[in-house]
């Protein structure tokens, strides 16, 4: 110990001189970047709390005075509970329905033997890169032919059907579960449905969380497909409603921004509670972009 103290003591001053500068630099860069990232949200919230007569003030006053909380009830009434429920319904059915078919499909690809298994799986893989704009027009034609235009099923089913990515994700995850567990259950008299439901699903919580987070996020935020398929006011999800407001409510910017804040609130709360799951889910879903 005594032998090493001397050189360490000699080295310390230079370290002590250098380290704070690096740390200060890192903080400065991070704070500058963070300002750029949150500024739009601060603007949104600031605007949503302004009285009508301060909305177009120049230069903008960032801290509204007085703060008008009443903009939020007004915004909630404009948005309507129905639009909120439409978004919740759409997201929930897509996540649960697609979750069911993709875990089942992934199980079949990972654990069941049937003719053409690898060829069919390659077909799924090959279509994962296809952007939605490519299938959007024919999908609309199909939905119109089915008489599903401007209906919940027209909105939900085609999106629920986009299970190639989920099927791939679950197939990969199920492959990591030792086959012997299933074999042992088979010897004990379990059929594939038991193995799927009682062994594979309970073991795949990480994959399900990842899948759930990214599917819910993309469904909640989806705009293009609802825009194409929905016309009735009663069927619109939140994205469609606020996009419409954005072109109509130019004179009531404060209410518009309160509407946007409310539309973001549910997913922001979920994000704050389960940030880790969002990050993990997104990392796992790299391929989906």
């Amino acid at each position: 110990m005594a032998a090493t103290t001397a050189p360490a003591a000699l080295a310390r001053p230079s370290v002590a001189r250098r380290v704070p500068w690096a740390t200060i630099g890192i903080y400065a860069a991070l704070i500058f970047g963070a300002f750029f990232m949150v500024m739009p949200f601060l603007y949104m919230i600031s605007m949503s709390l302004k009285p009508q007569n301060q909305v177009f003030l120049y230069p903008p006053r960032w801290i509204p005075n007085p703060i008008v909380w009443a903009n939020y009830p007004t915004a909630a009434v404009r948005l309507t509970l129905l639009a909120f429920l439409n978004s919740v319904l759409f997201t929930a059915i897509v996540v649960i329905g697609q979750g069911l078919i993709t875990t089942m499909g992934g199980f079949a690809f990972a654990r069941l033997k049937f003719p053409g298994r690898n060829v069919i799986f390659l077909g799924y893989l090959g279509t994962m890169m296809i952007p939605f704009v490519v299938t959007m027009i024919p999908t609309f034609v199909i939905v119109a032919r089915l008489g599903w235009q401007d209906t919940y099923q027209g909105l939900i089913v085609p999106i629920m059907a986009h299970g190639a990515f989920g099927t791939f994700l679950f197939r990969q995850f199920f492959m990591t579960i030792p086959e012997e567990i299933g074999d042992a259950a088979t010897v004990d008299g379990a059929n594939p449905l038991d193995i799927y439901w009682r062994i594979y699903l309970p073991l795949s919580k990480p994959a399900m969380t990842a899948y759930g987070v990214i599917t819910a996020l993309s469904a909640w935020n989806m705009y293009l497909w609802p825009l194409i398929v929905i016309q009735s006011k009663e069927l619109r999800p939140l994205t469609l409603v606020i996009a419409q407001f954005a072109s109509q409510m130019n004179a009531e910017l404060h209410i518009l921004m309160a509407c946007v804040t409310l539309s973001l609130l549910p997913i922001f709360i979920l994000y704050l509670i389960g940030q880790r799951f969002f990050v993990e889910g997104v990392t796992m879903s790299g391929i989906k972009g």
Partner: protein
Amino acid sequence: MSSTLLQPTSQPAVSPSRPAVARTAGRRRIRREWLWALFFLGPNLFLFLSFTLFPMLFGFGVSFFRWTIIEPPVFVGLGNYSHFFFGDPQTPQIVRNSLVYTLGALPASVLLPLGLAVLLNSGIRGTGFFRGVYFLPLVTSGVAAAIIFKWIYAKQAGPLNQLVGVFGIPRQDWLFDEVLVLPALILTAIWHRIPLNIIFYLAALQGVDRTLYEAARIDGANRWQQFQYVTWPMVTPTTFFVLIITTIALLVGAFDQIRVMTDGGPLNASNVLVFNIWRTAFVNFQMGYASAMAYILFLVVLAFTAVQWIMQKRWVHY
């Protein structure tokens, strides 16, 4: 469930002297497995065929017709494709806009997240807070982001004009100026893309062997040299992955933003391919022409992927 009738799989071992029975049982087992596969994969496969594979082929077919949905389709051969390349006066501008938008947003969308991920990974205090802040745009819908930025760019009371005013630049009408509209949209696209790419880089950085940095430090490398000779080579595979998916996301994902902020204007100055496909199909009802453009975009996406994969083989240090 314990019925042996349903479980012939365990039987052959018990009766090895009767191979014929075993073979029948085996065949029955395969047949039953096939039925189970149908049960598990059936709904998935049905929806996949109906809403992915069939639309793919159907859309390709539609691209050879002139079709307004109301009137019956008319076969035009390659007419829609040749119209896009040689006939449509809008094409040069749309292609140029798409290139400017994608290539303009790409460098910052890749390099800023790399830098920020390195900073977030440096182990300083408060990292959790900064991550929380940086990832917020990730959970923000394209529509919400577009509405907010539309007003940030507003001429009269927009904060951007307040900011540039500090530098003595007069107020601009960002979204209604043919020159400024694409840079404004690019800035929003970068803002929206940063969190996802930070997450990819953070995952990559956490996979870099710590001992490499120690070795570099012992050799006297400063922070920048450590980045240059350790971090950068080690994350090159991620950089190429991020380049590929960001390019594709910018090419096909610009719709929400453009529809809400500019509607392709002013005078087509922000009309990119993906927006024009939607407008051609659902405003002008030219389904055939829109389908042809969708397939052209698809080929562009494939080409970008291919080029970057080839470059990846040459540049990546594993």
